[in-house]
């Protein structure tokens, strides 16, 4: 499950921020999960808890919130805007799995529902990002 790799990256980024800003305690981490990557929320939440080092006092009692952001696209050919739900019909399990690993592979499998172009812009909801880190 590569949710663990992404969770580990979130925790590493938080600790790097704490180092840079000289924080003795990280009080909150807000994580955004893009719908396109189809992260399993339960697995990701479990992984976030698992990858926090036991001996790391700066992450004791830290509030971690997750917000899912819907994926939206704009076709560069016909300028139509569309959502993942509008494209999901034709996608098969293997294609969704490939996008789960590398969201950019959406370009191999998703087409504009209006004109079938493969040239579209991902407006929102790509993958895992950090909205903010708070500490003291």
């Amino acid at each position, binding site marked *: 499950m590569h949710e*663990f790799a*992404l969770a580990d990256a979130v925790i*590493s*980024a938080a600790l790097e921020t704490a180092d840079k800003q000289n924080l003795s305690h990280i009080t909150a981490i807000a994580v955004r999960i893009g719908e396109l990557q189809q992260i399993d929320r339960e697995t990701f939440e479990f992984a976030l808890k698992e990858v926090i080092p036991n001996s790391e006092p700066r992450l004791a009692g830290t509030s971690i919130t997750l917000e899912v952001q819907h994926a939206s696209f704009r076709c560069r050919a016909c300028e139509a805007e569309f959502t993942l739900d509008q494209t999901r019909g034709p996608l098969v399990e293997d294609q969704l799995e490939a996008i789960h*690993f590398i969201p*950019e*592979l959406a370009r191999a499998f998703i087409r504009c529902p209006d004109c079938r172009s493969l040239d579209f812009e991902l407006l929102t909801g790509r993958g895992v990002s950090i909205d903010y880190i708070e500490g003291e």
Partner: protein
Amino acid sequence: MDPRLAGVRKRLAGIDRIIAVTGGKGGIGKSVVSVSLSLLLAESGLRTGLLDLDLTGPTDHVLLGLDFGEQFPSEEFGVDPMLVGGVRFMSIACFSKQSPAALRGRDVTNALIEMLAITRWDELDVLVLDMPPGLGDTSLDIVRLLERAEHLVLATSSRVVLETVRRTLDVLAQLRTRVLGVLENMKSDSSQAVEQLASRFSVPYLGSLPEDSSLELATGTAESLVRTPTARALREVISAVFPQVRGS
């Protein structure tokens, strides 16, 4: 904030050396040299990884004869590279299989960071990067993200290639990257143009590999690729860089 960048630093911490096989021009043998180099290093007992960074035209898996079938790489706390010929191997083709993906610049950067953030190389002596042609996003991202990468610049004596390689060396110098040296490929005459170009940029001329008509036949089998005239010459060249690799 992109948390993957912290993930990349952590994932690559156990790798001793990173060698980016570059050259600017397409069709000058970067993939053959990257794959052969990886196989030779692994054969010499070095823990070796190979990452195909030609994200829109990956071919290393073809050279290695990998058929992904319906399988994806295994996962446990990240994605495990595939093992072939003793080399730990990763490519976007492990996920896209036969499907082409047309990527714009930002997509290339994102896909590259994603692969670096999720791949579990663990401890490696050498990670070989097969770079795409050109001086685009991948080259700049590798310089930005992997400051310690050493660039092995491939060239031929063709005037067209020399012009591109000259620009590549110029950019690498301006970016203050470490250039391992210039390696001449497909050498068929006594031209010293590549050697002179290396000298002009004060980087080592590592040697030359011959024109090799046996490569097509060797394609698809790791065991055959390390027995070609190209691999024999490459073994000599890299034995000066890696003492573990014995020349003839």
